[in-house]
Structures are given as C-alpha cells and as structure tokens.
C-alpha cells in the first residue's frame, strides 16, 4: 500500500511540473499573441487595398501585357508554405500540411517552405524545394520578405514556375484559424475574384512611365507585401493555436491531478484502516 501511495505521489509531482510548464507556455503565447495580432492587423489594410487595386488593374486592362499578367509558360506550381517554427501548437502545423497536400494533389509543384517546421516537413518528405533558407517565420523582417518576393518574381519571369500560390493560416479569432491558399502570380490567376459590392468599370488608366515599368516595380512590392501579411497572420494563428493547446493541456493536467488526489487519499485511508486492523488484531491476542 505504502508503495502504491509513493507511486501516486510521484506521478502527481511529475504532472504538477508539466502543468506548470504548459501553463507558462500558454501565458507566453498569450502575451506574444497580442503583439503578433497588432502587427497582423496593421498590415491588413495595406494588403487588402493593394490587392484590390491590382485586381482592378488586372481586370480593366487587357490592352498591355506584362510578364506578370500573362498566364505562366510552364505548368509548374510553386507553393510558398508558411508554417510555424516550433511544434506544441495543437494541430496548427499538421492542419496546414494536410491542407497543402490536398491542394497540391496531382499538380507538378515545388515548395518554398517558410518556417522551421515547414522546412523540416518537406525535407523529411524529400519534396522538391525551391529554397530552404527561410527557416525563421517568427521574426521575419520586411527586407526578408522582399528577398522572398524578388526570388519568386525572378523565377516566375524566367518561366521556371507557371503559377505561384501562398498557403498560410488565417487568424479569425482566438478559437478559429483557417488554412487558406491564395494565388499570387500571375495576376490573371485572381483577376476574376472581385468584391461583389464593387462594380467593374473599365477605366482608362495612365501608367507612368509605362505599364511595363510600373508593373515591374510594383509586383515585387506586392508579393513581398502579401508574404509579409501572410507571415504575420500565420504567426498570430500559431500563437493562438499554441495558447489553446496549452490551455487544454493545463486543464487536462488539472483533471488528472484531481483523479490522482482522490486515489492517493483512498490509498492513504486504506493504509490507515489496515494499520488499525492490525493493531486491533494484535491487541485482542
């Protein structure tokens, strides 16, 4: 009995320290989340407006061609996959990879993993990767996003990829995160998707110095903008997912502790009863 009690006590101790860790991780994620959320919120309007503007341009202009508006020459897809740097975030990474796998099925594609977990995942799988240097999603800077964007645009212009899409996790609220993919290049890939409340008017727009030059200057900017916003969103989602996972783990630890406490008390009671029985039995002799 005493041995049983000791074992239960030991388990309780180990669970208590695990609870402490998960609790701390949850708190850290929650405080980081606030910062990440602010960053994601700040980047959102620029992203939306830029996308709408480019949408308009792509829609109302059929009279010029830029290498970015033409449908890609090759059938190859490039998927930039933005995942987390670390695990222990519930289904965050796994959901994303499952989603990407479903989206890329049957397509000839190359991956550009962003975030340590994505790099690991595609390395393990031996998938074709464009570049694996972007293994830090957490503190990606705008200039790094520019590097990614320049790289993608370059490859697109060279014709190595025919389509470029971005997979990330959209942060909706603390409890819902949505895995999403958005087409990035060519611009004709998303020319059709219009906001419903916005009428499509074909406008005559003047491009200075010329449509080609404008596009060539703006598109890398736009791509880096998308990448940056998506990374911010993903980061917020990752932290929210981690916070939720850690909350659940802490709650679970508490439940187990409660059960163990009960069985510990029961064991203690049993050993006391046994002792009394033994004493009484000894006394009556």
């Amino acid at each position, binding site marked *: 009995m005493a041995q049983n009690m000791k074992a239960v006590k030991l388990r309780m101790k180990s669970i208590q320290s695990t609870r402490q860790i998960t609790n701390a991780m949850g708190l850290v994620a929650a405080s980081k989340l606030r910062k990440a959320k602010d960053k994601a*919120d*700040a*980047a959102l*309007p*620029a992203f939306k*407006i*830029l996308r709408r*503007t480019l949408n*308009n*341009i792509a829609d109302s202009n059929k009279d010029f061609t830029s290498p970015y508006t033409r449908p890609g020459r090759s059938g190859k897809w490039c998927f930039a996959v933005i995942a987390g740097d670390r695990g222990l975030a519930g289904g965050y990474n796994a959901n994303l990879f499952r989603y990407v796998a479903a989206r890329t099925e049957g397509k000839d594609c190359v991956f550009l993993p962003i975030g340590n977990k994505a790099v690991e995942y595609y390395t393990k799988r031996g998938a074709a990767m464009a570049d694996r240097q972007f293994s830090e999603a957490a503190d990606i800077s*705008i200039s790094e996003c520019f590097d990614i964007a320049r790289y993608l645009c370059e490859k697109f212009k060279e014709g190595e990829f025919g389509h470029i899409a971005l997979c990330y996790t959209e942060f909706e609220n603390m409890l819902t995160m949505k895995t999403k993919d958005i087409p990035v290049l060519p611009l004709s890939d998303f020319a059709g998707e219009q906001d419903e409340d916005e009428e499509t008017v074909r*406008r*005559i*727009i*003047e*491009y*200075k*110095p010329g449509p080609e*030059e*404008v596009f060539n*200057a*703006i598109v890398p*900017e736009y791509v*880096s*903008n998308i990448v*940056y*916003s998506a990374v911010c969103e993903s980061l917020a989602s990752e932290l929210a997912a981690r916070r939720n996972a850690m909350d659940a783990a802490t709650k679970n630890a508490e439940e187990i502790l409660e059960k163990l406490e009960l069985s510990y008390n029961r064991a203690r009671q049993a050993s006391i009863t046994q002792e009394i029985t033994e004493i009484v039995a000894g006394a009556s002799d």
Partner: protein
Amino acid sequence: MANTFQLRVVSLDGVQFTGAVQSVSCRAIDGDLAILAQHRNYITAVGMGTAVIVTEDGTEKRAACIGGMLSMIDNQCSLIVTTWEWDSEIDVDRAERAKERAEDALRDLNISEKDYKLASARLRRALVRLNTAG
C-alpha cells in the same frame, strides 16, 4: 470642395493617413510628381523620397516615403507604401548613425556587390530621412 480629393496612405504598419487633401507630392521611380484634384486616372510606382501632403485647410505634412505605389482612380488617391514616417517621428540621430555606417561600408574597396547594394540602399534611406526631418 472641388479642389480637394480623398487620399489614403497605407503602409505595412497600418493606415497612416486618410482624409481630404489639396495635393500630394512624392518621388516616383522616374522623378518627382504632384497630384492635384481631378487628376486623370493614374498609376505609378513610388521610389524613395520626401512626400508632402497639403491637407484641406492648407497645412503641409511631410513624411519620408519609401517604395510602393500611387494610384489615382476616380478622384480617389491611394498611396500604398512599404515604410512611411512622418517628419516628427524620424529619429535623426539614428538616421545620422545609419548614414555614417553606410558611408564607412562604402569606403571599403573590397566590398562585395551584394553588400555594396545593401549599403547604398541604406545610405539612400538614411538620406531621405535626414532630408525629410531637416
């Protein structure tokens, strides 16, 4: 008012400005330009330079504006930029230090092409900031 138009300045750090303005000027990739009300539909790419906004009541606001695009469509102007710093927000000491560091780097004759590009971009940004602030 007929001679004003709506301007919206958005950077990656959030919406920087919205409101009616008389004019906005900035540096595009092919030189300085200013937009007034009723400008024809116009799109250009923005380079690095000082942007000046003249608001409805005639006050002038200056900012260091780096990279992005300007679109004027149906008398609604959007300036979407990578970074946008109002002159009051610019840390002059920091820009000064960045300028010196970049100049030091450029003095080195054995600099690699990539570093050269990086340093000269830094120098240009620092100069834009200093010009805007001073």
